[in-house]
């Protein structure tokens, strides 16, 4: 054995490398089968950032389809309910540049919730079919009503209503329960540290 090594150093090295490669290849091959990930994990992460209003303003039927589209390279600025904060989070996750919200898909507005004027409802069930999160309660020829706590404010029930009895109203009125302290005014922090600091344009 030692003789073989000394006599054919090149061959020995080659053999050693090939056998090492075979062993590691086998291990990697096994690992890729054994620890296989189902689906694209990035889709899950994107879907978690999206606001789950399922409103379809991005042009996809729901948040998950849009997450899949983003994973396949679609622009990240098509989600008005997510707003600037959502775009920022997506840009951080995907390591792409932050771009302003695409106005074509709507503007960011306050969170809303649908409200059915129940006296006018004729019980046509059209809104029930349109609601992506089953947040409307009702049956044919029975009055319908919104389960406000489940409504995502997606707006999709307004269009199908034949008697126009659905309103979108702001979800939370400003009040004692929603009030909280605001961050201090950042302007006051731009004060110069040293009294002799002159404003930029006056500096020599």
């Amino acid at each position: 054995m030692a003789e073989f090594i000394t006599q054919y150093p090149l061959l020995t090295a080659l053999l050693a490398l090939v056998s090492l490669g075979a062993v590691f290849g086998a291990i990697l091959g096994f690992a890729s089968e054994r620890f296989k990930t189902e689906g694209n994990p990035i889709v899950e992460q994107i879907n978690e950032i999206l606001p789950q209003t399922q409103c379809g303003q991005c042009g996809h039927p729901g948040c998950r389809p849009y997450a899949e589209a983003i994973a396949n390279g679609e622009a990240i600025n098509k989600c008005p309910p997510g707003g600037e904060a959502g775009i920022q989070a997506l840009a951080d996750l995907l390591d792409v540049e932050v771009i302003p919200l695409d106005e074509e898909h709507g503007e960011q507005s306050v969170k809303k919730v649908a409200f059915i004027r129940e006296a006018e409802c004729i019980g046509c069930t059209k809104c029930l079919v349109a609601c992506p999160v089953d947040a409307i309660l009702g049956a044919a020829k029975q009055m319908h009503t919104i389960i406000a706590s489940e409504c995502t404010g997606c707006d999709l029930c307004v269009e199908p209503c034949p008697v126009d009895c659905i309103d979108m109203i702001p979800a939370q009125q400003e009040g004692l329960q929603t009030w909280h302290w605001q961050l201090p005014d950042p302007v006051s922090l731009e004060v110069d540290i040293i009294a002799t600091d002159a404003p930029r344009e006056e500096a020599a």
Partner: protein
Amino acid sequence: MRKVFGFHGGIHPPENKHQSVRTPIADAGIPPQLIIPLSQHIGAPAVPVVAVGDVVLKGQLIAEPEGFVSVPLHAPTSGTIVAIEERQIAHPSGYQAPCIVIASDFNDEWIPHSGTGDYRDLDKAQVIERIRAAGIAGMGGAGFPTAVKLSVREGVKIDTLIINGTECEPYITADDILMRERATQIVAGTLIMQQLIEPSATLIGVEDNKPEGLAALRSAAEGTAVEIVEFPTKYPSGGEKQLIEILTGKQVPSGGLPADVGVICQNVGTAVAIYDAVVLGRPLISRITTVTGEAVAQAQNFEVLLGTPMSYLLELAGYQPQESRRLIMGGPMMGFTVPSPDVPIVKTTNCLLAPTEKEFPTPAPAQACIRCGMCAQVCPASLLPQQMFWFAQGKEFEKLENHNLFDCIECGACSWVCPSNIPLVQYYRASKAEILQLRRDNEKSEQARIRFEARQERLAAAEEEKEAKRAARKKAAEERAQQAAADGGEEDPIQAAIDRAKAKKAAQVTGSADESELEKLEKAVVTTRKRLETASGKLAQARDQGSDLVQALQTGVDKTRAKLDAAEKALHDYQQANSDAPMAKAAPTDAAQAAIEKAMAARSAEAALSPAEKARAQLGKLQQRLEKSRAKLAESRDSGAEDKIIEALESTVERLSEKIAAAEQELQATEGA
């Protein structure tokens, strides 16, 4: 002598306590009107049990607790309920909250009440019920329902009961004067709690800057199992977690409760309230409040009825509004500016501070953080305030949580020592609120995701089931055909019918290539009508003959009629769709998808238009809708539809007309501009 421990950080601000302890507790008397907010505690607001116009006696229940974590409210004096409405309350937001307003009759007439001389005869549940019924919430400042805190959960062993007489915040002397004047009640209340919890040690912790209070407590506690512990003055040793560390050397874990280390902490004011409730049978209707600051002539402590307007109390103390810069509820470190002097005193109002401009000068503008680290040195929770300040500015909430933002007790020591005058606590308060909001939002979006996915699954399952049924039917038909074929060459009537139907269908398919959709629909209507006529004729015949088949024929007629209706509707829809839009698109299968597409198309069209054009388009759309609605209305009137439908349509028409008027106005405005 018990060993006392220290805690990290802390500061020694000027105490300014001597001004308000020179005179004994004064009775504030009865103000003409009392405003009692329904939420003076942590938890659900109480629910009123009285109505406007009711006459109430002192101590009468006026609002019941809602749920477990809540407390009842009682009338602080006798009088008439004049209003139950929104009033401004002592809250930094300056918002209004529901309150019960009582006009006093100045008789101060008590409702019959009785305590129990020997509470030792009562079992624990009865004592806790009395505390709960008396409406006691933590008197130290947070206002957590005391009965909830004292109901120790099964399996949790409490070995130390701590009564907090620290009162470490400058200016406030409400607990100090209580210890001087009502030490026996404090000890009696403490003994009641001791009976409830059965700890191995009961301690009353007091800072060494209150020698009179300490002496009074010591003499009152003589011969009992209550131990009075004195320890050096330092702010904020009165914080619950800090006091526990001082007295026991144990640290409450991050995010945990004192009960996790076997401790329950109560304020001395709460002890007196418990004594009043259990021994005297009196609910919590008054408290001791310090009125101090240089803008009042006579700083002192008052026994004041809950609901008394602050302005009434300030007047008693000789308040000079022109001198005062602002009015603070609580102390100078953790208090907040009240929106107006007319807000009421509540269960947690331990101090009213009216400082002058000289006393509390306007803070200098905040400057940049110089990373001196003094805030980290004084933080009693051993946090890194300067680090959290950066994260709060950058809204890096995850990092803030990793730096244990939620262990911050908002004591204000960091802001007090900051040489750059940065209002650090305000950053932490705002960030905490924002994180909690985000958590709620996340929870909601998770819920929406689950519902959305469940719905998708349900729809897919329904579709699959339909498909399976269809396949099963097809298979059964084929089997029958095969069976018939195998039975022999004899002509099978069913197979023949199937064949005929198939042939007819094939003919239709080939024919329909040049037959327009409209013609097809018309044909369908005509054939169905004919079938209906035949079926009706047969039915009439069967009825005349009294045949058994009447029932079956009746169903057949009904079905055919329904089919005819459907066919007519399809025809009508088709005609209307054709007149509206010449190129009717194939209807999308999913209603949600359809709505999305419609909304998308409208939105993209809108984006390209100028405001005037937009307004005009809007107007046109509305007019179209109005016409349609009018037509629908007329149609349903003619066909004698239900009143409800007609009414709904009428209101739609009305609203649309209103909308059109508004749109016209807008159009004029945009064109004018």
